[in-house]
Each structure stands twice: as structure tokens, then as C-alpha cells.
């Protein structure tokens, strides 16, 4: 595996560096090279590269050259820098927080709906899960990017620890009040870290707001326009942050660091409950030495939860540079590759191999028909999908998705202010007010930069 990756990157580098003028042409007998940059580490990266290899083997007009470009944020920065230098990849994998930036990128990108119309390639987006479709489309429903690896946030909990604390290992509490009691019981039973959270902003602010059906920002969380303003300094989030800070002080909750840093605390057995990406499943399956379960995210009493939103990444078709347009042949190749990704068998395999969501209904049905979810080893693998459809599948403008410019920065800001509250430098309420003010400054700055 390792050697193959090195070979693949060496090949990709050679092609990117040496053969740029020739790569775009696609003369007789020579397949058209399409550069594809992604940000998935192993083993996911290898599985993704295998999909590109399968596409290449299925026809001989186009060759998708997949190459790993570092983490999601690094891939984003690399693609933007490459665009400015006129060397952008044809396709780039962009994480969900980069969506707002890409949508505002104007002539740097080729929207998927335009791409498909010009190349006369058909992809049936009505079959995609509504939560996935909404995240990557314009308000009028036209798709801007190609959905691929989507996840959502769920709870993983340690059943052995639950048993030790005399808690029911087969029923995770549905409310935060119940979670707090469970955490107290776990602590009393000697569990040093009852609960933690990965992706603090994504799980405790974004997903939290969506399932409680409260707005994160105006303009339908930014889907309606660049003039959106954050609304996170609200009573419900203040209550939740106050609880988190108190729980951290009382030893019921442990802040495990920014972004995915807390992921490791669950499979190691350190923390008994983790709020994490559904994509963590593969790692837990591989590493955990205990019985574990999957559950939906809790809500505060008195709330009827609705659907959660997605995370993960989608694929964007990019222009070559400020003065470099793609040829019709290149666009045709990109569209063909996207159509390949939309095939139910490709999407279904990706879902069962990785724990990401099946992005289309056809893929979900296909997997269900094989009896995959009924196997004991896969127990709970359908919890993320059920949670995406919670509330009867009727999404509100609070649960369609989030599209904020400079969202990478806003996520960091919320984490920073939360960290200051954990240190006792400010109250939870001040943390949210500060995060809202600083985040709004980022939004206004982004709006100004992208006025055209």
C-alpha cells in the first residue's frame, strides 16, 4: 500500500511538473490527463485513488490522476495558490467549511450544473439525500459541486463502561439531561473521562443548532447570501456552553483539543462517550478493545429533534487559472468522472468500506438489500442515515446546511473563545458574544472581498 502510494504520487508529481502543456491536449491515442487533488489520508485516500483507477480502466479517453495534497485545509490552500499561478487541478476535493469560499470564487470554478449542461452529461441529483443536495446547491436547487464523501455527527459510547456504571448499555440517553446523569454515574463508577467531543464547533454548535432547529446565522445560515450574520449568542447555546464549562470543571467532560484531536480519546478507552464524525467508525472498529454502541445526538428536554447536517467534502471543478480556461474535452472528462462517482455501486461501496454516508437513495437501498445493516459487525451503521432523516425528512432553513465565507476562521474563533471559557477567563455567555462579534467581522470582511 505504502509503496503504491509513493509510486502514485511520484507519477502525479512528474505529470504535474513536466507534462503540463501536453496534458491538456489529448491527441489521438493519448488520453486526456485530469489532475485530481484530494485531502484524504490512508486508508481512505487509497480507497479514493482506487475509484479513480477504476474509472481510468473503464474507458481510454481520459485519465484521472489522483494525488494527495495534505489535510483538507492544506489541499484548499494548495488549490487556491495553484489557481493564482495558473496551475490549478481540474478537480479538487474541498471540505464542507470551504464551500462558502468556493461558491464565491466566481470564474475560478466551473459550477457542476453548468458543467453538466455544456457536456450533456446527466446526473440525477433528485436521488441524492436532501441534506447532501442542499449543502452544495444554490437556493434555486442548481448544483455547484459534486457531493462525494459526506458524514454527519453521531455519538459513540463505551458499552462496557455503561455496564460498570449500572447504565443500560443498549439505550443511550436521548436528552442532554440524561447524558449529564449518565456522565455523573460514569464518574462515580471511576471513569476518569466520562465524555469528550471531537470537532467542538461542528458537533456542539453547528449540529446542535440544526437538530434543535435554531439558526446559526441569518439568511438561512448563509445559504441566502453573503450578508448573513451569526446568531450564536442565543439562550439555548449559552445554556449548552455553560453546561460544558461546568461539566469540564466537575470532571464530567474533557476538552480534547481542536478539530479532530479528541478522536483518539474514545478508541483508546479513555473517554466513555464521544461526539464525533460518523467517519470515525472505521477507526473505532479497528482499535477499540471494548464493546461500543452508536447513537443519535441528544437534545435538551422539550425539543423535538430534526435532521442533522453533513460534514465531509465534495468535488469542485476548477478553471486552470485567472487566464486559463478548460477545453471542452477536459470538461467532458470531468463530467464523465463525476457521473462515474454517482453510480449506485460506487457510492454504495464507498459507504460500506468507510462509514461515510451513502449519498444517494439508490446506494442506500442497494446496501440495505444486501443485508449489510443486519450483520452484528455493522450494528449502528445506519444510525447516521436515520439521523439525517430525523424529523420526517422535512428540512428547515436551520437544518439545510451552512454556507459562510471565511468559515474556517469562524470555526477556529469559536474554538478559541470556548477554550478561554474553559480556562475561566470568561463566562460561556461572553465566549459566545465574543465569538459572534469576531465571526461577524470575518463575514463582513469576506463580503467586501467578494463584492463583485
Amino acid at each position, binding site marked *: 500500500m505504502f509503496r503504491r502510494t509513493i509510486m502514485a504520487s511520484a507519477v502525479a508529481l512528474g505529470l504535474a511538473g513536466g507534462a503540463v502543456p501536453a496534458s491538456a491536449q489529448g491527441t489521438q491515442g493519448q488520453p486526456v490527463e485530469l489532475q485530481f487533488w484530494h485531502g484524504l489520508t490512508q486508508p481512505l485516500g487509497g480507497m479514493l485513488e482506487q475509484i479513480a483507477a477504476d474509472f481510468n480502466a473503464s474507458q481510454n479517453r481520459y485519465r484521472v490522476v489522483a494525488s494527495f495534497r495534505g489535510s483538507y485545509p492544506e489541499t484548499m490552500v494548495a488549490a487556491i495558490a495553484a489557481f493564482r499561478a495558473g496551475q490549478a487541478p481540474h478537480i479538487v476535493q474541498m471540505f464542507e467549511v470551504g464551500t462558502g469560499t468556493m461558491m464565491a*470564487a466566481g470564474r*475560478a470554478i466551473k459550477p457542476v450544473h453548468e458543467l453538466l449542461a455544456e457536456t450533456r452529461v446527466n446526473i440525477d441529483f433528485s436521488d441524492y439525500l436532501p441534506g447532501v443536495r442542499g449543502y452544495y446547491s444554490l437556493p434555486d436547487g442548481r448544483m455547484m459541486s459534486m457531493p462525494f464523501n459526506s458524514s454527519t455527527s453521531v455519538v459513540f459510547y463505551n458499552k462496557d463502561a455503561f455496564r460498570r456504571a449500572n447504565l443500560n448499555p443498549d439505550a443511550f440517553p436521548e436528552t442532554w439531561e440524561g447524558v449529564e446523569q449518565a456522565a455523573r454515574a460514569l464518574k462515580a463508577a471511576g471513569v476518569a473521562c466520562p465524555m469528550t467531543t471531537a470537532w467542538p464547533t461542528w458537533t456542539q454548535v453547528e449540529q446542535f443548532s440544526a437538530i434543535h432547529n435554531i439558526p446559526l446565522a441569518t439568511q438561512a445560515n448563509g445559504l441566502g447570501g453573503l450578508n448573513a450574520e451569526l446568531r450564536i449568542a442565543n439562550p439555548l447555546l449559552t445554556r449548552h456552553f455553560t453546561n460544558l464549562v461546568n461539566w469540564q470543571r466537575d470532571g464530567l467532560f474533557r*476538552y480534547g483539543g*481542536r478539530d479532530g484531536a479528541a478522536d483518539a480519546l474514545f478508541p483508546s478507552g479513555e473517554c466513555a462517550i464521544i461526539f464525533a464524525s460518523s467517519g470515525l467508525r472505521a477507526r473505532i472498529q479497528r482499535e477499540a478493545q471494548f464493546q461500543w454502541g452508536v447513537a443519535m445526538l441528544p437534545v435538551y428536554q422539550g425539543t423535538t429533534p430534526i435532521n442533522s447536517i453533513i460534514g465531509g467534502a465534495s468535488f469542485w471543478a476548477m478553471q486552470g487559472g485567472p487566464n486559463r480556461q478548460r477545453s471542452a474535452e477536459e470538461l467532458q472528462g470531468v463530467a464523465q468522472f463525476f457521473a462515474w462517482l454517482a453510480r449506485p455501486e460506487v457510492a454504495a461501496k464507498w459507504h460500506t468500506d468507510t462509514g461515510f454516508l451513502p449519498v444517494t437513495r439508490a446506494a442506500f437501498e442497494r446496501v440495505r438489500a444486501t443485508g449489510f445493516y443486519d450483520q452484528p459487525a455493522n450494528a449502528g451503521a445506519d444510525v447516521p442515515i436515520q439521523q439525517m432523516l430525523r424529523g420526517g425528512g422535512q428540512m428547515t432553513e436551520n437544518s439545510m446546511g451552512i454556507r459562510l465565507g471565511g468559515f474556517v*476562521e469562524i470555526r*477556529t474563533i469559536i474554538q478559541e473563545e470556548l*477554550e478561554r471559557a*474553559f480556562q475561566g*477567563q470568561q463566562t460561556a455567555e461572553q465566549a459566545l458574544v465574543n465569538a459572534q462579534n469576531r465571526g461577524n467581522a470575518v463575514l463582513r470582511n469576506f463580503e*467586501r472581498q467578494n463584492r463583485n
Partner: protein
Amino acid sequence: MRKKVIFNGVALPYLLLLPQLVITAVFFFWPAGQAIYGSFLREDAFGLSRDFVGLENFADILSDPNYLGAVWNTVIFSSAVAFSALGVAIFLAVQADKAIRGSGAYKTLLIWPYAVAPAVAAVLWLFLFHPQIGLLGRFLNGIGIPWDYKVNGNQAMLLVIIAAAWKQVSYNFIFFLAGLQSIPRSVLEAAAIDGARPTRRFWTVIFPLLAPTSFFLLVVNIVYAFFDTFGTIHALTQGGPGQATTTLIYKVYVDGVQNLNFGASAAQSVVLMAIVIALTAVQFRFIERKVHY
């Protein structure tokens, strides 16, 4: 006296200077000029639209409490790194300079950390001080000292200072050792015969004679703490918790590379450039006078 070489004509000397001038222009003046130009602009990430905004970027960063926090962090961080790295290095150098058995081995071992890349050094310290997997981190928590640098800003700062200073000790050690070995034995022996004890000999003879070395190292260490500690901070704390370990250079990276806010990042680079130019000028003008070569 100095020997002068006279060239016939001007073409050859300029030709010989050319490579150095070209390198300086391409790798120093051109990027610096770009940074200054960029600091007056506000543009989107893809470079498709740009506005000239005058000094607005500077006004923004100087009125940002987080930027001023980064300035304060940098002052604390740089002085702590420079002084602890110098202090430990001079202590080790004096000890290693004594006539002890196997001093060659000690000297070699003390130089090793310099060959460790900053990010690797940070990972080594992480394995020591991580609250869950680190040897010392677990020990501290075990004896009842709540150690978690992910939520405690002061502990995070302490950790990055230790990791950054440790890395620089070897470099300082080499220079101090060379400086010590160039101090004439006769001077020390004369002081010893006059009845000066080792401590007194150190402060009255050795330390003043080491002054040129110390001064040079002070400049180098401060520049190191300002610019070369990015990898250490990035690998250990990513500037957190809050912005407790965000120094000026780290903030330039966060705003420019992560947040794609080029105008603000360029303005910060220009400020940083001005600070370092001023700092170096002050050091050479005022401190150097008191140093006797």
C-alpha cells in the same frame, strides 16, 4: 595592515558581485516588496478582485486586541526562550569545559539536539508532556497537579518555551564552548593566584570575556524565537488554547495561509519586519557599545 586588491576597470568587480546581488534582490527585496505592496490591498482568496485600501489593514490589526495579545505573547516567548537557552547553554559549557573524564562524549551529546528538526523536537516534548500519553504529563496528573496544556494557556506557553529553548541550547553551547576555550589560561590562573574563587572568577573574568559571544548569541536567539519557532508551536499547540501561544509569526501564518486573508497577513509581516529591523539596530547601536571585543 589590510591588503588592497585593485581591479582594472569596473566591469569585473560588478560581475563578481552580481550573483550575490541577484540572490539578495530575488530572495529578499522582491518578496519584501511584494509584502509591502500586498499590505495596502484587500483581495479575495483567488486573486480575482483587489481593492487598494491604503493603511486600513494596518489600522485593523493595530486595533485588534488579539493582535496586541500576540505582540505580548511574542515578548514573553522570545525573551524567555532567549534567556533560558543562553543561561542553560552557558552553564553546560562551563561544566563541559572543566577537565573531567569523557568530556568529549558530553560535548558531542550536548550538540545533538541541534540536528533535530523543530517539528520532531516538538513531537518529542509532546510525548513527554501530553496529559494522557506523555510520561511527565501523566506523572504530574498522578501526583495531583492538574496538567493539561490544551486548556491551560500558561502551561501551553511554558511547554512551547521549553521545547523552543531546548532546541537552541546546543547551538549556544557550541559557541560558548569555543568562547571559553579561547580565554587565555594565564588570565584565569592569575585570578586564581590572587585568591578569586570559581564563582568570582566566572563573573569577573570569564563572563566579560564571553560578552562578544553572548551578544552575538542574543541577537541570533531573539531572531530564532521570532521566526524559526513556527514549527514547534504548530506541532504542539497550534497557537492555542484561546490564542495563548499565538506569536506574531504564527499569526501571520494563521491569517495568511489558513484564513486566506492576505492583506492582513501582509500588513502583519511588514510590522514584523519593522520590529526586527528596529530590534537589530538597537542591539547593535546601544548594547554593542558596552561589549568589549
